[in-house]
């Protein structure tokens, strides 16, 4: 067993996590889980940034992660607020129920 991990293994791991989150957004109908999968995708991208930061000896990657975490926190606060409003209006967290514009 080698004593180190190649960068492409770490990057591929990030891609796998990203696609798990992506698949979750596509196949789940509970909007809470869709939110969680979006967080999963954001995390995968963060890890890609940190990997490149380590590989390229550049701190910009970790700086980007810092700001992405802030934006993700703001996004989930507003998103969960929207979700509560949606639940009050529709009495459901099913994404297929969001069709008021169609009526």
């Amino acid at each position, binding site marked *: *067993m*080698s*004593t*180190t*991990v*190649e*960068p*492409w*293994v*770490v990057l*591929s791991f990030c*891609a*796998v996590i990203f*696609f798990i989150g*992506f*698949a*979750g957004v596509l*196949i*789940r*109908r*509970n909007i*809470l*889980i869709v*939110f*969680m*999968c979006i*967080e*999963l995708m954001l*995390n995968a991208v*963060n*890890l890609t940034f*940190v990997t490149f930061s*380590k*590989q*390229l*000896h*550049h701190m910009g990657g*970790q*700086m980007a*992660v*810092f*700001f992405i*975490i*802030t*934006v*993700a*926190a*703001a996004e989930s*606060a*507003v998103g*969960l*607020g929207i*979700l*509560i*409003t949606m639940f*009050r*209006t529709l009495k459901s*967290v*099913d994404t297929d129920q969001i069709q*008021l514009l169609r009526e």
Partner: protein
Amino acid sequence: MDISPIFFYFFAGLAIACSLAVVLKTNPVASAFSLVLTFFAFAGIYALLDAHLVAALQIFVYAGAIMVLFIFVIMLLNADVPSFDLGRSHILVRFLSGVLCLAVLGLFVWSFKNGHLASPTADFTPERIEAAGGNTQVLSELLFSEYILPFELTSVLLLSAIVGAVALAKRKQGILKT
């Protein structure tokens, strides 16, 4: 990269298993707790990659703040819904989208493996970061010098997010009420 393979594969396996559980569990609370474990595994990988501040922030912000928010909302709503929708689309559509997803993933992995990775472009080597006082010191000095404008803009973003969240959640009757 000089990181320990045992720890990396442990955390990576944990993260993949838990993120699959997030997608596949039907109970939202189980998904949320799997997500917490995923975040902890990610924090472990950040620490392996010498990003100590990011690892700490990951636990504080994601596993702490965001997940508490999620758990609160799950318990507030208390909604049991059938949450998988695999049965409603055509089988050919499902098959094609699965194949397409795997193909794009394969393309990513192939290009990561065979692509040429650029050589270091800046001089933040681990030795120099260590000499300058460690990862947190270097990051915070950068944050308050080179990245001061995005840092200040972040505060505006957070303020507007607070105002937006309060305005959305406070409303007694939904604007969409029919």
